[in-house]
């Protein structure tokens, strides 16, 4: 009997924890629910939590109001370039710091550390001016360039590279394998889990960016989804269900990647950031 009681408690605890989870994500759930409501239903008092007369026109109206797929495409292109770029530059730099001994190594490493002391927001206006002086506004180059490397990425990749046994490198050198080939065909494949962690992290960070794309894009052709969100909100202020339908569509990619990559993301987030 005691065993049964313990089991019942465990199940109840599990259900309780799930309910708390529903509470945490309730804004998302309500957003989805409200996106199927007409303006009159959204005004009802008390608020309807689920639509009584669901409408779906809101989703079609988003596509008429803003070029959402163009925005999504832009966001995906930007994310892809930033992910590939950052993984390449960070892992090359991390390789240099872990497999070479060279003059100025300490100073260059300190330079990487120093970039962490300069918050992006405090130099964003200067970067914006650089881009507009170079006449690069409204280009993919502008959207991606400042994010093609990161100190965090370098430290994270370095941490992963340092776990690779030195003997492996020695053996490869004896076999006549040069540094670049060793990096490309041994170090990178071994580091797949770390690369996946970094990739998921960069995706969510880049996809969700707001201020930088707001500064460097002026035309619908180059805008990303987050800025599209802001345009939609101004265009459809009266029919708020449509704005919410847009929000739901913008949420889908990042929430999907988060659910699929959560395991990697957690590993990446917690690996380098805290001593422990």
């Amino acid at each position, binding site marked *: 009997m005691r065993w049964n009681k313990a089991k019942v408690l465990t199940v109840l605890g*599990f259900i309780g*924890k*799930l309910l*708390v*989870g529903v509470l*945490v*994500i309730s*804004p*998302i759930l309500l*957003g989805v629910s*409200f996106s199927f409501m007409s303006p009159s239903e*959204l005004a*009802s*008092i008390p*608020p309807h*939590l689920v639509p009584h007369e669901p409408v779906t026109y809101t989703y079609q109206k988003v596509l008429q109001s803003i070029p959402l797929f163009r925005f999504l495409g832009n966001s995906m292109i930007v994310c892809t370039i930033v992910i590939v770029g950052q993984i*390449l*530059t960070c892992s*090359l*730099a991390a390789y240099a710091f872990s497999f*070479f001994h*060279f003059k100025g190594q300490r100073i260059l490493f300190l*330079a*990487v550390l120093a*970039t962490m*002391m*300069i*918050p992006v*927001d*405090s*130099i*964003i*206006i*200067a*970067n*914006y*001016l*650089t881009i507009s002086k170079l006449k690069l506004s409204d280009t993919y180059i502008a959207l991606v*360039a*400042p994010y*093609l*490397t990161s100190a965090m990425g370098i430290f994270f990749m370095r941490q992963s590279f340092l776990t690779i046994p030195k003997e492996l490198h020695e053996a490869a050198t004896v076999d006549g394998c040069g*540094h670049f080939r060793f990096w490309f065909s041994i170090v990178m494949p071994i580091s797949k889990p770390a690369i996946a962690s970094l990739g998921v992290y960069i995706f969510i960070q880049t996809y969700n960016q*707001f201020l930088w794309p707001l*500064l460097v894009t002026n035309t619908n052709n180059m805008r990303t989804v*987050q800025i599209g*969100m*802001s345009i939609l*909100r101004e265009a459809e202020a009266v029919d708020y269900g449509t704005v919410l339908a847009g929000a739901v569509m*913008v*949420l889908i990619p990042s929430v999907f990647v*988060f659910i699929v990559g*959560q395991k990697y993301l*957690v590993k990446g*987030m*917690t690996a380098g*950031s*805290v*001593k*422990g």
Partner: protein
Amino acid sequence: MSSLGKGRNGSKVAPYLYLLPCMLVFAIFVFWPFIKTVVYSFTITDTRGNPIEFVGLENYIRQFKSPQFRNSLKLTFKFAPMVGIPTFIIGYILAALASERMRGSRIYEVMYSMPMAVASAPASVIWFMLLSSGQNGVVNWILNSEIRWLLDAKTALIAVAIVTVWLNIGANFIFLLTGFRNVPTELIESSRIDGAGYFTRLFRIMTPIATPQIFFVVFLDIVTSFQAFAQIRLLTPNGGPSYSTNVLIYSIYQSAIRDSRYETAFTQSIVLFLIILVITLIQFKTEDKVVYYQ
């Protein structure tokens, strides 16, 4: 022999070549703009951001005399604990709830951390509806109140803080959960045998062991509160009713983009940099004193 020599020569330049791409990006988009921001903050700039005249500390003096800027500073410092304290408490409770690994626990772990995946733009758009002023707003309906959340200068910053808290609880949860799970299982088991209850275990064992993570998230919350931009722009356009949400980062944006007063934006950027620098230094200084290492 010749190939050996070449190899040696090659590996002399090689490390620098490997570092070239990242150093190039850092030089153009971190160090150069930083130097520019510092230098230009001592000048008067034209409407396109070119310096015209060196004026020394004049911009700083003008800023610290300006009631608008002082208001922004005050709001920035007020906003940090308004976001940080609730975020930490909620993250802590969620991590405590999920601390034990069990079958199916991944389901609620994903739910508790999900807000992290949500961008501030769609989150703001959704919360705008929930924080609606009338009785049709879910928040007012739950509280049985008629607060004009986003329209009242007294509540606008609180409303923005609520959204920011929600956006940040995911990250707090993940770090604190990692901290709690660092506790060796034998320690938990032996405390159980000693008859320690759940809360004794939580406060006497798990919390001390998680101090590095606790320390980390507290500073993370402070620094991320300084970056709140999209939610302010989307929830309370133009800095909110009576500039009640015009925090530093928003003020920087307005000075540069709306007013084309770049020297003001640069000066405010340097103030933001200094604030974050001081907080980071405090973090480094106190970390080793406060944090309990295993």
